[in-house]
């Protein structure tokens, strides 16, 4: 079965920054079986140079109202214009640059999604904020949707939305 790689960003011990792990934990078992989970902490371009499998980057997002689920096409993040919303978190490099560099270095076009939840509280040792925690099932459903779709595309060249 084609596998989708889930890149889990963030720091589980810093409040809402740990939301990516919570989203992965909330995935249905059947979906989880179609994935390969890789915790990456800070996303770097070489994390996106893998073996050609489609990827879903899962992370907390800073900026939009807390609890908002963000779902973006990953390769397009590098091409966003000034003023467009770009997911940001405490990475060594901004996501636009990470994706942009990976796009340049990959032998084949980058294929995948970014799914995240906007956070509010990044304090050390804090639990997920209630407004963030309540959005975890919705974000997990988005991830599950894209896992099924990306996996199907890999297997037979595409699936209807």
């Amino acid at each position, binding site marked *: 079965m084609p596998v989708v790689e889930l890149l889990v960003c963030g720091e589980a011990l810093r409040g809402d920054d740990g939301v990516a792990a919570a989203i992965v934990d909330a995935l249905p078992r059947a979906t989880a079986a179609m994935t390969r989970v890789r915790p990456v902490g800070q996303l770097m371009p070489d994390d996106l140079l893998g073996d050609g499998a489609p990827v879903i980057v899962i992370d907390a997002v800073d900026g939009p109202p807390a609890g908002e689920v963000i779902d973006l096409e990953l390769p397009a993040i590098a091409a966003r214009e000034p003023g467009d919303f770009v997911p940001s978190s405490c990475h060594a490099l*901004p996501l636009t640059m990470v994706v942009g560099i990976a796009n340049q270095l990959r032998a084949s076009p980058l294929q995948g999604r970014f799914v995240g939840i906007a956070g509010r509280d990044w304090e050390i040792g804090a639990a997920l904020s209630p407004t963030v925690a309540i959005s975890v099932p919705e974000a997990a459903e988005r991830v599950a949707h894209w896992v099924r779709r990306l996996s199907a595309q890999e297997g037979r060249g595409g699936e209807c939305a």
Partner: protein
Amino acid sequence: MHESRDVDFSVRQLTRVEGEGRLTIRLHDGAVAEAHLEIFEAPRYFERLVVGRSGDEVIDIVARICGICPVAYQMSAVHAFERLFGVQIDPEVRRLRRLFYCGEWIESHALHIYLLHAPDFLGYPSAVELAGDHPAIVERGLRLKKLGNRLVALIGGRAIHPVSVRVGGFSRAPRRQDLTELAVELDDAIKDARETVRWAASLPPPAFDREPRLVALRHPTEYPMNDGRIVSSDGLDLEPSEWPSAFAEQQVPWSNALQARARDGVPYLLGPAARVVLAGSTLHPIAREALQATGLGDELRTSVFRSIVARGVELVHALAEAADIVDAYREPDVPLATFTPRAGIAAWATEAPRGLLYHRYVVGDEGAVQHAQIVPPTSQNQAAIEHDLTEFAPRVIDLPHAQATRQLEQLIRSYDPCISCATHFLDLRIEGA
């Protein structure tokens, strides 16, 4: 009749730096009347967060200050507490800590050289465009950074915000087999790093010389990381715990970060160039040879734009020393020494990738922190950055807007400020020109 001319440079958002800041330069008749690096990121109150905590808890908390150099925060804290508590660590633990620090220097220096600073010299707006034209260069940087992250993860349990450091040693030490698996990669990486130095030295810097006061740790037999004395280019020689006798922090109205200056008010420069100049005799022979081959010598001291070369030399050093430590490693007999906390002042400084990082804790009878002071290198370099901007800005005032922007950004990035995700997205506004 003379007509006065005012020019304002306002960089409203420094991005791709760790933190949030802006640059404001005001020139009057060609002279800088004001040059401010404004750090407006909200205060993070870490010094308050550690109050009431034990030494081990402090070590875990301060690691969260920075995702690029958490090891430095852990090392300054752990040495401070061990000195106060009179802890004697196993010699192999001491070497393991140097290896840990080498890992951080490797990942931090590789990130800055290849992905943040190099595009300036080659005329690219960012590493994205650099990767398009020169993929092998960017891939080399990513390879080096990854190896540094792996070293940190192997020793610290995780690459970001490691968790294994404890007062007295480590909660667990890596197995010899885990480290020896890295030996071949380290040897290959040394070749990459030597090429990094040669390549960095070939990058033409903007013309700008000055005579900075340099400050770094210096140790008689080893390149400064965890140990040594604080020395300066004008004769300072102190125990790391004596930092407050020569330097002081001050609040400036334009920044949420405290600025540190020498007690005589003069700015000073920390970081790779200061270390290479003040402690170059203790560089690993492979790194010393790489430096000598550049023929740059004094230029590393006088040109801030040559810091990329000094950083490359330290990359070679960190990899070569890491290879030596891995080669000789044996698992420590006692990875974690026992100790009894006591009241007093716990203070120490170590060398973060960006320079001297000073910690001071007032510890109560039960071993809990009552007061903390943490002085990161960027807050110490801030005044030197502003001083250099004051000197450099008049030279770019008549350049086209984009070129002036690029050169001011390049100067700021030369310090690798831990406002570090930044500076290719500066928005420079020139008013009154």
